[in-house]
């Protein structure tokens, strides 16, 4: 196990409340899987790290994230721009609420509908209601279905319980799936009996109960690690990383969801867990926090204009936002 000391805990991808009838359960939503890409770094000839930055195409200068707005392109080359607040007005009732309207047998959801997996963790004293919903869902093998707005897009979501945790899986809308007829696939035809028999024999021969673990590993990653190992042994092209190298995405310290889970779910440790690096909006006094911690909190809450705010203004904005 890599050492856990220097890890940054993952940020919630969304926060809001689940509506279970009239019961509101404040939650935070986290991405459940690790990034797909291997941690290959882009570096300069001299081995200094390169960072992806946004540049203004007119001024040819790097710009801060806060100075970026979204524009919808029009035919004449101009854009209709939209701010966060304007976008939030599109479907305000769905921006911060997952209203569970119906509960369906989980096994009825065909795999083709499942898109991404997230974990929901209880927020601000909602642990009891959270556990209650998880128990009720688990007991009946059902998933709660809702639509809500996640990052400028309405998502269909199925919420189910697993090991006492609430799992949120986004589903593809029905019209986001093409039908075999649209694609032009042929209508079912009765198969040639001989061909079917030989295929079934081939399938039977390859039948097993469990997938082989090694099949599920990324072969490219293995080849890459072998190459790295070889070069390390030979001491070829190996440099000590400069202090400026950002280790946040290194494979050595991949997002430690388990740590967040432990922090947020143990009742005893919950208070301690609302520490600064958790980005938690917990119940701690905002005044006692550093400006950097307040800024991170403001980032999580997507408070606009945060980069220009003083500490006092940040505290006020966060308070208003809660």
């Amino acid at each position, binding site marked *: 196990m*890599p050492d856990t000391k220097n890890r940054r805990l993952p940020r919630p991808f969304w926060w809001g409340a689940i509506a*279970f*009838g*009239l019961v*509101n359960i*404040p939650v935070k939503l986290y991405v459940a899987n690790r*990034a797909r890409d291997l941690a*290959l*770094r882009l*570096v300069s*000839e001299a081995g200094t790290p*390169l*960072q*992806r*930055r*946004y*540049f*203004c*195409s007119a001024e040819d200068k*790097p710009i801060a994230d806060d100075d*970026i707005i979204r*524009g919808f392109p029009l035919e004449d080359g101009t*854009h209709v721009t939209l*701010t*966060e*607040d*304007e976008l*939030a*007005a599109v479907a305000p009732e769905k921006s*911060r609420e997952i209203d569970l309207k119906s509960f369906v047998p989980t096994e009825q959801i065909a*795999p083709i509908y499942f898109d991404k997996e997230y974990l929901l963790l209880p927020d601000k004293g909602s642990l009891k*209601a*959270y556990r209650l919903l998880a128990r*009720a869902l688990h007991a009946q093998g059902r998933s709660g279905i809702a639509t809500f707005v996640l990052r400028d897009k309405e998502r*269909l979501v199925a919420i189910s319980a697993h090991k006492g945790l609430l799992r949120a*899986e986004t589903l593809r*809308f029905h019209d986001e799936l*093409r039908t075999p007829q649209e*694609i032009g*696939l042929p209508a079912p035809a009765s*198969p040639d009996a001989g061909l079917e028999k*030989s295929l*079934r024999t081939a*399938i*039977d021969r*390859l*039948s097993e109960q*469990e*997938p082989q673990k090694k099949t599920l590993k990324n072969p*490219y*990653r293995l080849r890459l690690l072998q190459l790295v190992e070889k070069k390390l042994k030979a001491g070829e092209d190996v*440099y*000590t*990383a400069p202090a*400026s*190298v950002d280790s946040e995405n290194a*494979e*050595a310290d991949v997002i430690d969801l*388990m740590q967040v889970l432990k922090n947020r779910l143990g*009742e005893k440790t919950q208070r301690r867990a609302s520490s600064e690096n958790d980005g938690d909006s917990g119940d701690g006094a905002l005044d006692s926090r550093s400006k950097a911690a307040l800024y991170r909190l403001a980032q999580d809450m997507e408070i606009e204009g945060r980069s220009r705010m003083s500490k006092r203004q940040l505290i006020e904005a966060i308070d208003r936002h809660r």
Partner: protein
Amino acid sequence: MTARALWKAVLAIGEAAVPVKLYAAAVDRSIHFRLLHEKDRAPVRQALVDVDSGAALTLAQARRAYLTAQKDLVMLEADELEQIQPHPSRTIELLQFLPPAAVDHRWYLRPYYLGPDSKPDAYHALIASLKRTDRVGLARWVMRNKDYIGVLRLHRDYPVLFTLRYDEEMVSLSGFEAPSGAALEDAELKLARQLVSMLSSEFDPQAYRDDYRQRLIELIETKRSGGKIRRLRPRAKSGTQDLRASLSRSLKEIKRSA
């Protein structure tokens, strides 16, 4: 109208070969925005910046390196990376056939419909045999210079190949203890289960629609023609304290509206 195939391949199942075409089953219908610089409305572009010198570089000028846990940077040459690329192939090799539940849907990434290619007989025989055996195939292939693993199974009697996440990408919850706390009260649990039961239904994917897309298009149109737009900053509702009372009231309301 028939859709264009993304890729052509041959499924290799033991000695048998089934030529197929791949079609994307999922389509992206979301509205995409451009990122602009707020001050001058000019589109932004991404560039690479040397953290130490501040110099901007193009992707072609950048080199690749692997960062080890010990903070060693191992520089990798373009030809070295070239050598570990997978070999191009048109074969989708079926390695194992498994009970459908053996690979959880959480591993699934993207679905592709398979259509027949040169041997439609083999295609129809494949559908029939997947149906009869009630098994899903675990497959491996190389497509556009990338290694893939996938699951072959039927969706409403048509073969679908799902690409899979790799083991390294999955976060395992094994060893995780369920959240604990004071014992839940039986009365509340009973009410919660009742509420789930009362709101129970069958899963009907056609019952849910993305209204947001249409509303967003209308909002863009309003703003384009100079109309007034609301600004909002929705807040999350705070947690319910009296669970029992709220659950009882929920049940009563549903009964009344039923």
